[in-house]
């Protein structure tokens, strides 16, 4: 059963009848005349009078409500409030005091460790003096001072920071007494760590930018042959390293070659470390305490060498980063060039599309022309048939029918591109009543019309137009794989025929030209 797309709505009224019944009952009730007797109750009136008297009596009274205040309770509340405030303040102070105390204890431990390190360095210096009592190699010197110096400075700096930190904690504690109880210590610590992390990130980014800029300036100065300027850039950037290298006995030329990746090692520094190793081995039999100072110096030099290598690696990385930036610039420029070429190719494609559109329009015009030719030919045939019928009845005269036939002949002549002389000849034939000749000639015009002629050329490989003219004509634009022989009929125009034939050649794998007209006539 076929599916139904319908919906049935049903509305039934069952209420109106009921309402009518009720209305009828009410109407009956309205028409009835019931008698209602109301009797007064004396007891009730007495009771009402008593109630009125009691109300009047109550209105005369002036009630007073007294609310007593318990001084003991208010005192207790005040005490509790004071205790709470004191407790809150005390808790805050306890927490803050504990944190400050813990920080101070950590600082004290750190200071103690630093002082121990300084003492150890001094001890090492003394041991070194003992080992190298002749004083020839001057191994102690500034190296130890460099080691202890920064440590001492760091210690002082940390102490200063600790004092400052304690002061800051005290200020914030007094300002944030009410809010600090709501903040967990862990959250505060995480926030501090995050801030520190962001600061480090920013510092690292700025340092990397400075390094890149300095490297670019250096490369530019070298490229332009400004060696003094390049040397100044290096000194500005790595002045401290040059000083340390000088202290380690490494010459500026050697260090520059190492820093600019012209050499992979620092021979002088390596020789110094090797010399220290030799001394340590030579004095190994004097005990570990005797060589401890030498080992300390050697370790310091090794650390210096590692620092130099790290700087050199950073330098190389910066150069790589600059090369990568240059590569990206080249890639972007190349992409822009490619985009420009794509745009030019697109413009060329657009010109091709326009040319193709123009060609299609031309073909459409030709198809319309073919239809017009057919229509004109049909009209002419109809006129000729009518005329010939009238000739059969001997009724052809200079009436409207003859004029219509002549007009049709003129139209056909214009349509088929005939000369005025040819058209005049046909008109004379109409006047002479030789309509058969007119029809034959116009039929010939129709057959030889370029469009109709092309529509009859069904195969591009071998085309025979027929007629008595003879003579092979080789088209100049046909496909190279095919030879087209066209036998020109008498009176036909060879140029138009060639154009139609050549238009049928294959282009890009498709047929164009007359083949399209051929289909359009169906």
């Amino acid at each position, binding site marked *: 059963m076929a599916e139904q797309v319908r919906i*049935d*709505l049903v509305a*039934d009224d069952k209420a109106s009848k009921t309402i009518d019944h009720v209305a009828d009952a009410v109407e009956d009730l*309205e028409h009835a005349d019931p008698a209602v007797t109301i009797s007064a109750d004396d007891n009730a009136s007495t009771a009402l009078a008593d109630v009125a008297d009691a109300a009047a009596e109550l209105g005369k009274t002036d009630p007073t409500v007294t609310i007593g205040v318990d001084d003991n309770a208010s005192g207790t509340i005040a005490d509790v409030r004071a205790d709470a405030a004191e407790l809150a303040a005390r808790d805050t102070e306890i927490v803050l005091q504990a944190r400050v105390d813990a920080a101070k204890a950590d600082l004290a431990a750190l200071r103690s460790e630093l002082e121990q390190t300084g003492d150890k360095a001094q001890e090492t210096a003394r041991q070194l003096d003992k080992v190298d009592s002749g004083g020839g190699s001057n191994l102690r010197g500034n190296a130890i001072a460099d080691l202890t110096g920064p440590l001492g400075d760091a210690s002082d700096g940390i102490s200063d920071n600790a004092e400052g930190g304690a002061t800051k904690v005290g200020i914030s504690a007094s300002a944030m007494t009410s809010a600090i109880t709501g903040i967990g210590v862990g959250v505060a610590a995480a926030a501090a760590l995050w801030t520190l992390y962001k600061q480090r990130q920013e510092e690292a980014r700025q340092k990397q930018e400075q390094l890149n800029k300095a490297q670019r300036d250096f490369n530019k100065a070298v490229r332009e042959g400004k060696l003094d300027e390049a040397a100044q850039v290096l000194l500005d950037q790595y002045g401290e390293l040059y000083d340390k290298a000088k202290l380690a006995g490494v010459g500026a030329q050697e260090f520059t070659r190492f820093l600019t990746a012209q050499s992979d090692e620092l021979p002088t520094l390596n020789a110094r470390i090797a010399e220290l190793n030799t001394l340590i081995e030579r004095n190994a039999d004097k005990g570990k305490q005797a060589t401890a100072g030498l080992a300390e110096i050697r370790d310091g030099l090794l650390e210096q060498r590692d620092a130099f290598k790290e700087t050199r690696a950073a330098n190389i990385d910066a150069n790589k980063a600059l090369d990568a930036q240059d590569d990206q610039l080249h890639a972007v420029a190349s992409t822009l060039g490619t985009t420009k070429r794509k745009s030019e190719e697109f413009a060329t494609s657009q010109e091709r599309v326009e040319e193709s559109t123009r060609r299609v329009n031309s073909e459409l015009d030709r198809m319309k022309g073919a239809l017009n030719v057919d229509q004109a030919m049909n009209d002419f045939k109809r006129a000729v048939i009518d005329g010939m019928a009238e000739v059969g009845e001997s009724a052809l005269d200079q009436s409207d029918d003859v004029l219509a036939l002549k007009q049709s002949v003129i139209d056909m002549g214009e349509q088929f591109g005939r000369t005025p002389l040819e058209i005049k000849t046909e008109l004379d034939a109409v006047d002479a009543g030789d309509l058969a000749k007119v029809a034959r000639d116009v039929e010939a015009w129709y057959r030889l019309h370029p469009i109709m002629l092309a529509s009859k050329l069904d195969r591009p490989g071998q085309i025979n137009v027929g007629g008595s003219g003879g003579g092979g004509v080789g088209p100049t634009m046909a496909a190279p794989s095919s030879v087209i022989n066209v036998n020109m009929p008498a009176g036909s125009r060879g140029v138009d025929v060639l154009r139609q034939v050549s238009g049928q050649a294959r282009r890009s794998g498709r047929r164009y030209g007359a083949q399209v007209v051929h289909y359009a006539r169906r």
Partner: protein
Amino acid sequence: MPAASVNLHALAADVRRIPHAGMIAAAKAAKKIVDDEGRRIAGADGMRGKKRRGLKLRARDDIRDTATGATCRVQGSVPAWIWANTGTKAHTIRRRKRGPMRKMVVSHPGMPGRHAWDRVAERITRVVPEIFAAQVSEAIRG
């Protein structure tokens, strides 16, 4: 002031008119729902093929009074409602193009149903009772 019985009789008359009056409003609402769903499926120009006038998905209504009330039948106006509701199987279509042809029919792969009439029924089921409820409420309030 009119008597209570007069008011009750007027109320009964109003209630008696509700089925017909409410059914007209319900039919209008139902046809509007049908038109709305039809436009959603087929667009403003209707469900159209090539070079042909579009089939507009609308509905007809038929209201009839009965002894106790009124009935209304809302029916999809074209068979295309069935296509839009339950879809079609694969089938062939006769070509209407004039002129010589190699094939007289073309194969249509069929189409899935989009349950358009089901949505119409669902919306009408929800809306029509509200219309009658509003009519009853208006009659009672006077």
